[in-house]
């Protein structure tokens, strides 16, 4: 997995960032689980997923169980790479903007 820091505007939007974070922690996550975890409506989640799918970052898989259709979401290899690169860039930026630690012994 690439660790070269690279900002990704598709991933950075708050909803999509949370979706990618959840999917990066599992092989697959169910649509309803992700919706509840990020507290959005079905339509908002679908909109985010469409954008991630168009970018080639997310894959959707439908599965019927007990007469009910479930949708499972997963990050594609390209999505995992892009998310890892985005997190690396966030960490790099956060380290740059973090306040200087106070000196030890002379602050009082």
């Amino acid at each position, binding site marked *: 997995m690439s660790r070269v820091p690279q900002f990704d505007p598709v991933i950075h*939007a*708050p909803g999509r960032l949370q979706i990618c974070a959840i999917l990066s*922690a*599992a092989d*697959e*996550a169910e649509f309803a*689980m992700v919706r509840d975890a990020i507290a959005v409506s079905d339509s908002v989640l679908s909109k985010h997923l469409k954008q991630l799918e168009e970018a080639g970052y997310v894959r959707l898989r439908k599965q019927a169980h007990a007469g009910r259709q479930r949708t499972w979401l997963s990050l594609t290899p390209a999505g995992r790479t892009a998310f890892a690169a985005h997190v690396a860039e*966030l960490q790099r930026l956060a380290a740059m903007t973090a306040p200087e630690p106070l000196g030890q012994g002379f602050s009082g």
Partner: protein
Amino acid sequence: MSEDPTPAEALEAIARSRRTVHDRVAAGGWRYDLTYAAIVAGMVGGQALDIPFNVLASTLGVLALALIFQHESRRTGLRITGVSPRRARWVAIAMGLLFAAVMLGVVYLRRTASDVPVGLVFAAAAAVAFGLALIGSRIWRRVYRAEMGTGE
């Protein structure tokens, strides 16, 4: 979180989302781990039995593992195989190697020491496998939790 989060806010949102995943996986974890350990104990201990019962123990064990995985996926809304997380996978691989070693040990013992009662070999192998599976599962969860906390 704002529409254009700062790097720190974005990293915090990622950590929060991953905690949500971890909390879902952790809830009911002991029940899953005990069931898993019992199935593995049956599979490993079953190698002490004669054909076709040893094959039956392996086959039923694999089916049972697939069933609890399916059940857990439906319960949590998440599918996580033991070998998917980058660091925790090494715990799963080590467990697999240990189970294989115990199985081979059982087969070797049955061939070289035929005077040892089958029941004793079965019970000893199953007890060892149960302990290894339970400890391994708990270690896997700890490593997975640490992995989730790193934001990687």
